[in-house]
């Protein structure tokens, strides 16, 4: 294998990993607060179209990415109001959000088909970013570095800050957190909004970095991989990074098997692997610890204080 091939492969894996890493980091925080939002795919698509639309209007991808975060966060609020104010079923509400986001993004996207947007400039000097070897480190879109930087930030937030501790308490035992005087709903609103914003940015990676243009359903089910990833990582930020790159490699193998007919295993095998691995990981986690390991105890359950 030539160096060029390895560099190209690494760049492919990074590109495939970044959107799921972003969306999964957001969903990790949501789930740590005890909420299961299955609307990731819908929020990613809303982020993809909002980011794209904002870039078309302003010619500024930085404003575009803010638009993507806002689009994702705003659509997550639909879910938040239903789940937190009306105690609706989280699974059904999340699915509805995905169906809604898929449809609405297609509808909004009608007026944006055929546009191409300006892409991000490099954050590093061109001599580094365009170097045939060093580009493997310096040649990515700023979103890639943002995603990587968010891993330790989210990890540190959850583990070492007071707010992170409160968030975990809300996810582990909402009734106790409530009786101590923390605002369960407030924490969950914030977590869901953060999850929406991160999913939105992850979705925008498709419309603003990979292509850069808009196509219906362009996130192609990556929102579900992101959901799987959170579980696969056992709800830990560090493992999330490792898992994201592992899934990224599997997705790259799928593409490679599809493109080259490289056929000691069919492309579908690699495509199914993240999901199978997640089922296995879930089982192992549950086997090791009957209480569900690191899974937040209140995950998916409604918050019903008695008074």
């Amino acid at each position, binding site marked *: 294998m030539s160096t060029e091939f390895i560099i190209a492969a690494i760049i492919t894996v990074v590109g495939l990993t970044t959107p799921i890493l972003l969306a999964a980091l957001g969903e990790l925080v949501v789930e740590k607060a005890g909420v299961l939002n299955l609307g990731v795919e819908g929020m990613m698509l809303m982020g993809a179209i909002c980011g794209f639309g904002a870039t078309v209007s302003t010619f500024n991808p930085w404003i575009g990415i803010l638009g993507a975060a806002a689009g994702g966060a705003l659509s997550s609020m639909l879910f938040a109001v239903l789940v937190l104010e009306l*105690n609706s*079923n989280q699974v059904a509400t999340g699915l509805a959000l995905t169906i809604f986001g898929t*449809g609405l993004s297609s509808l909004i996207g009608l007026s944006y088909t055929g546009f191409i947007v300006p892409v991000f400039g490099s954050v590093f000097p061109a001599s580094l970013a365009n170097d045939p070897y060093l580009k493997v480190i310096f040649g990515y879109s700023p979103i890639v570095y943002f995603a990587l930087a968010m891993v330790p930030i989210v990890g540190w937030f959850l583990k070492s800050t007071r707010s992170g501790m409160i968030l975990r308490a809300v996810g582990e035992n909402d009734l106790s957190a409530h009786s101590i005087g923390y605002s369960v709903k407030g924490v969950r609103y914030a977590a869901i909004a953060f999850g929406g914003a991160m999913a939105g940015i992850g979705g925008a990676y498709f419309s603003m970095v990979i292509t850069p243009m808009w196509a219906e359903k362009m996130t192609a089910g990556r929102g579900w991989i992101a959901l799987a990833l959170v579980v696969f990582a056992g709800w830990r930020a560090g493992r999330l990074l490792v898992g994201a790159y592992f899934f990224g490699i599997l997705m790259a193998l799928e593409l490679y098997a599809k493109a080259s007919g490289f056929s000691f295993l069919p492309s579908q095998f690699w495509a199914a692997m993240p999901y199978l691995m997640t089922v296995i990981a879930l089982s192992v986690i549950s*086997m090791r610890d009957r209480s569900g390991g690191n*899974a937040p105890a209140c995950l998916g359950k409604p*918050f019903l204080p008695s008074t």
Partner: protein
Amino acid sequence: MRIKLEKRPEPSTVMQFVTPVASVLLTMLIGVIVFDALGIKGGRAVTDIFLTPLLATYKWQDVAVKAAPLIIIALGLSIGNRAQIWNIGAEGQYIIGALAAAGVGIAAGGAGGGAIITLMILAGIVGGTLWAVVPAFLKTRLNVNETLTTLMLTYVALQVLGYLVGGPWKDPNGRNFPATAPLHADQTLPILFPGTTVHLGVAIALILPFVFWIIMSRSVFGYQIRVVGSAPDAARHGGFDAKQTIWLSLLIAGGMAGLAGALEFAGALKAINLGFPSGYGFTAIIVSFLGRLNPIGCLIAGIVLAVTYVGGQIAQTTVHIPNSTAGIFQAMMLFFILASDILIRYRVRFVASPKATPLPAAGE
């Protein structure tokens, strides 16, 4: 004046009926407003999506054919949902059911007729059931969350389909297009009305809700499901086995989804390609909620959702909106029905005093 919610002593029966109807009407109203705001003729779009399929008699067969899988899947899901078992992998079970039926069809070669068709349908039921065995096993043995496993296995099923139709089962005469060979005429389901597309599956979808209704209201099993869902502690004291309930509700849901897949394949599409999974398994979740987990409700809700599918295609040509726009309406119906759940358990009171009494239902 402010709005106050009071807990009802008993869930409101009236609201059980009013809320789904109100949800559909509200969805139509909001649809008109939102579409007008987006510069699309909202009135026309909503009329085409919700009413044209019902008013144009030649669209009825499309509605019937689309409603059949939705109703059948939703019937199975409603049982699990009643027992608080969240199978969201019906789409995968539906796919495997269709593949199992296709496998029988291929194995039968040139043979056809009633026996082969019956075998295909049974294979569909078995296939869907088997795909639900893993989540049921993991849930009962290791307490693994069934929502996550059923969802994950759906995406595995998608890849199984991709592999089979692109590889071993690919139609040799299909110009290298990843799809199975179309079923020959004596392997397809009988057509009920000559000259239409209305196949045997539609009749099954019309009969099953009544069968399920009798089972759920008259049998010990139906009682068990209702008790486990509404009062798990009482169910334990009453001697109902929680694990058995999990097994039954997941396997029945899987079997129904598999049946729907087999019927859709042998009755409507006759070949499986990469576009075969069209999200019926997910839409059926909406049907189940809109039908209030009631078998007859599922029948009606299945028709409503089928109307939006057919109407979405009409609106695609009349007001030039993407096909997936129907999804906006389907999701809105689910949002409203979930939001209105609270009206069943709580009574809305308008109180004069502006005193900041926290809403009980709002979770304070």
